[in-house]
């Protein structure tokens, strides 16, 4: 398997605070990769660094063999990395359909002129974009809410909408920041199936942050445990879960299986 994402010696400081320190890891193409660690261990910062919201103080990030360190976020997204947010960032006043269509925007070819004049070619393209968006909406079981304002949706639906929106950018790698946060057990079950479908049907590599250990153990094929920006363990989830260092730092002494 080839490396899709490769992070090498990445460090990031907020002033004197070391958020991520000398971080190195590779995400092979086609796996579901889990990044776990206690609160404040630098997981979300890692996501922010990969997606270009922050520029790393040190180190390099490669995506598909090309360096993407310091690129603007929208360029990185256009290059094939999409993400969701820990605390949802939905376009609340737009409809569910429009939320997804925004993410299709960058590949739309119609220029401003043909859009404003609503030329036939533009209308054709609009139909295609709409069809693609509706397909994603159906995949997420949101078709009854397609024309509702996103802010009126329940929390679980919003989580799925965000995943759909990330997928609409046609990524090769999707970063999910705590996708199961706030979900009930049944929703979590469905989410696990969904994550596997994303990988199997759409051939999208998944990198996820999660606190929900059951989800991590079930779907992730590889995990990396970090604490205070440093790697504690890496590898198969079942082996990592029994690593004494992990138990101590993350699960708490004797807290395995929570």
């Amino acid at each position, binding site marked *: 398997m080839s490396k899709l994402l490769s992070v090498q010696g990445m460090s990031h400081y907020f002033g004197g605070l070391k958020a991520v320190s000398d971080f190195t890891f590779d995400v092979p193409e086609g796996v579901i990769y889990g990044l776990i660690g206690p609160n404040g261990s630098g997981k979300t910062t890692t996501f922010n660094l990969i*997606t270009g*919201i922050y520029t790393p103080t040190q180190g390099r990030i490669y995506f598909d063999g090309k360096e993407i360190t310091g690129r*603007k*976020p*929208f360029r990185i*997204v*256009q290059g094939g990395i*999409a*993400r969701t*947010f820990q605390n949802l*960032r*939905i*376009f*609340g*006043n*737009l409809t569910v359909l*429009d939320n997804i*269509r*925004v*993410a*299709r*925007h*960058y590949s*739309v070819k*119609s220029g*401003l002129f043909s*859009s*404003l*004049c*609503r030329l036939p070619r*533009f*209308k054709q393209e*609009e*139909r295609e*974009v*709409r069809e693609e968006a509706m397909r994603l909406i159906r995949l997420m079981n949101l078709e009854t809410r397609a*024309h509702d304002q996103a802010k009126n949706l329940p929390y679980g639906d919003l989580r799925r909408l965000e995943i759909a*929106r990330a997928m*609409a*950018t046609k990524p090769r790698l999707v970063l999910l920041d705590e996708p199961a946060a706030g979900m009930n057990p049944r929703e979590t079950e469905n989410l696990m199936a969904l994550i596997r479908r994303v990988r199997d049907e759409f051939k999208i590599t998944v990198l996820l942050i999660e606190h929900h250990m059951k989800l991590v153990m079930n779907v992730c094929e590889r995990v990396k445990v970090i604490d205070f920006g440093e790697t504690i363990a890496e590898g198969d989830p079942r082996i990592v879960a029994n690593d004494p260092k992990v138990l101590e730092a993350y699960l708490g002494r004797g807290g395995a299986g929570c």
Partner: protein
Amino acid sequence: MDKFNLPRLLITTVAFWLIVTLLSLDSVNILNGYVLVVIERCLIFVILASSLNLVNGIIGQFSMGHMGFAAVGAYVSGTITTLWLKLPPPDPGVWISFPILIFMGAIIVGGVFAAGVGLLIGFPSLRLKGDYLAIVTLGFGEIIRTILNNIDYVGGPRGLLGIPKFSSFTIICLFALLVIVLLRNLVHCSHGRAMLSIRENELASELCGVDTTRYKVMGFVIGAFCAGIGGGLLAHLLTLAHPTQFGFMPSALVLIMVYAGGMGSITGSIVAAFTLTILSEGLRSAIDYIPVFKIGAMTIRIGTEWVMVVYAVLLILIMLYRTEGIMGMREAKLLIIEDKQ
């Protein structure tokens, strides 16, 4: 799709145009010249308010110097028609003639210049996140007024006088329709959705692959273009362009229209432009009936400047009791392009 919508908007506008034109015919004379000018002003403010709404309501940035762009449009088009070409005023009965076409061209050129200035201002300030645009545009509005005050070629503080009265009701209607259709089509296309997403959440928008700086600048420039058109029409309606017409107070008035109408609602801007323009004309004549107070040796005279106080109170009341404005984010059916299949 939108098969029926453009004609419906067109029919509404034509009906409005027909009614006003018929009622203002000399033989009918229900609407006299004064009322007609008020309606024409309303339509110009429709252009100005809805184009500011693109910047403030649709992209969610905060521009405070919209009239500065109107000033550019007014002075550029006024210079072309008055100082360079010295066009004679058109005969009132003539619908279309060569000078009228030149005038329309001059209005567009004014809009293009305003758009150019918009690019110059928008590009550096919109790259930053936060309230920089408000500060820069506020300064710009004052700078443009000061510059115009000091250019003798366009009349300095006296203003540019003797502009031929080319802005007929028909032409203003035409431009207003053009601007509204432009904005409506923009909202209902991929580029417009990108702009809306910036208002909703700039970071998420960027992480959906939207080049947020580009779309903020693009919307700002389109807004400036429309404001330039509005300013050009205003100058050719009032037959003069004066620096104070484009100062902070008129900019604030347009801003109030946007907020009163509803952020992001073109319909709201249209309704508010009509309401507030008519209100201001009404207040202007009503103030004449207020007697002069005498308290001891002090004389209190209520002048027309008090109209602005009424606006300020109105804005406070809107913010307190109807935060979302008259229309909220809703649009009239005419201005929606349905995409149900």
